């Protein structure tokens, strides 16, 4: 298939694009450095690829060595999705009583009528649904449950924002709908992040889930994440689950996140307003990680240093200006 063969692209093309804004004399010097890097001495010792392959091969020993090529078969013939769907879908989920006790102060028990549970800015909420499933909502998120949790044989909830689900086992599938994706639960503990303007990110802690968007679907296994961006479902990728769920302990994670999105998150989590002046560059990327909830002063101090801005207190929050 010709579409599988991308046009050959030299690494130098990418470099020249990266250097497009660099003045010419510097650009030539940096290109020379780049070429010289090809001479770099390898680190020692060299990896033993032969031995590693033998180890791996014996580990995969039971596998048939070659199966008929399937590249040209129609997609429907491929085993991937269908096979997985047919497996028993209900590993048991146990919500530990410890977990429940810890959050009991904010638990809302669903009482058989339509429910819209919202976590106000600065707060998180938790709900136990009629089937015993636990839902924890991050700040600014909302969970909508119909009069009956079970609709047409499917436990269905709707999510705006971010939540962690620990789904009770049951015979009926459990489905979370977001603005651009449907997450079908095949197992149990998973995080969905679907704030307006962000797409949807699903991270699986344990069990299995199926994520569908615009006709495509991905089945996640524990430790994996998948994103829906611009309406398109990505591929499953390895995730750092501890980071994806750090918000439940007050943690904050920004990895190369534009300042605009950082501010939106801080506003939701701390219920403050951050008014950025027109001269603040909101696409500056910030990387920061807090395992536990940082004090707002400390957080703003760090963000200021990282992004080159300062925060001036106002009545309802802070004005953001470039640092002098």
């Amino acid at each position, binding site marked *: 298939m010709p579409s599988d063969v991308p046009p*050959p692209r030299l690494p130098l093309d990418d470099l020249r694009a990266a250097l497009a804004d660099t003045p010419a004399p510097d650009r030539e010097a*940096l290109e020379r450095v780049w070429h010289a890097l090809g001479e770099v001495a390898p680190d020692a010792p060299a990896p033993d*690829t032969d031995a590693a392959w033998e180890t791996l091969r014996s580990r995969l020993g039971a596998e048939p060595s070659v199966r008929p090529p399937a590249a040209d078969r129609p997609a429907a013939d491929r085993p991937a999705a269908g096979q997985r769907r047919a497996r028993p879908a209900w590993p048991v989920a146990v919500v530990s009583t410890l977990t429940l006790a810890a959050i009991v102060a904010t638990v809302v028990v669903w009482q058989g009528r339509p429910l819209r549970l919202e976590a106000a800015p600065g707060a998180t909420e938790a709900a136990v649904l009629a089937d015993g499933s636990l839902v924890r909502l991050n700040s600014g998120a909302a969970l909508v449950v119909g009069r009956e949790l079970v609709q047409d044989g499917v436990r269905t909830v709707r999510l705006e924002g971010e939540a962690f689900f620990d789904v009770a086992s049951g015979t009926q599938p459990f489905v979370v709908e977001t603005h651009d994706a449907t997450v079908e639960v095949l197992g149990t503990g998973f995080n969905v992040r679907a704030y307006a303007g962000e797409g949807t990110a699903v991270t699986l802690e344990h069990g299995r889930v199926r994520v569908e968007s615009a006709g495509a679907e991905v089945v996640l296994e524990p430790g994996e994440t998948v994103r829906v961006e611009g309406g398109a479902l990505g591929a499953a990728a*390895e995730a750092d689950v501890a980071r994806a769920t750090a918000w439940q302990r007050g943690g904050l994670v920004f990895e*190369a996140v534009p300042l605009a999105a950082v501010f939106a998150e801080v506003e939701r989590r701390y219920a403050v307003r951050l008014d950025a002046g027109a001269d603040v560059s909101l696409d500056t990327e910030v990387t920061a990680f807090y395992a536990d909830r940082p004090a707002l002063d400390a957080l703003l101090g760090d963000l200021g240093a990282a992004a080159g801005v300062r925060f001036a207190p106002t009545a309802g929050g802070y004005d953001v200006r470039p640092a002098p």
Partner: protein
Amino acid sequence: MIDVLPRPATVTPPVDPAPLADWTRRIRAGDLSAFEALFRALHAPLVRFARTYTPRPEAADDVVQEAFARLWERRDRLDPERSVRALLFQAVRNRALNASRDRRTREDLLQQHAEAPASGPLLPDDLAHGETLGAHLRRCLDALPDRQREALTLTRLDGLSHAEAADIMGCAARTVNNHIVRGLHTLRERLHAFDPDAF
């Protein structure tokens, strides 16, 4: 077959994209020989890459073995449209970061990434007489801030595109470009000290 394009002599040829896509399709169909070809092509670069995150060589080996084993176990889910090379580098990076969490806290690691501390500039006195350009480059590269070294290693030494590197590093391609340009500036200063005539 794809014609081999002429490249400047010092450029490490990257693995051609064409065999990778072909291997990916065959691996998805269960072809172990294609998997072996992929393994042999990418094992050494992946181990070297993993070593930059973990001080223990055996941990780097394990991380790479696990990434390949998982790729094979779940070959039916390979996406031929997505770079299998980027997929493996990303898996190795995540696993290596997770593995090293036992030794250093995650905060330290990310802070290091965020703040990019440089170990002080090499002074002319540091330069051992008789050090080759290659050995000198290795020391300078290792002394770069993590993100800059990561971006340069992936693109320059392992031959990945800037878009693939961005995918692996979890940031925008523009950010990869910035890391590369900044890294090259630093290397230029150090190379100038090493050989003022050439740089």
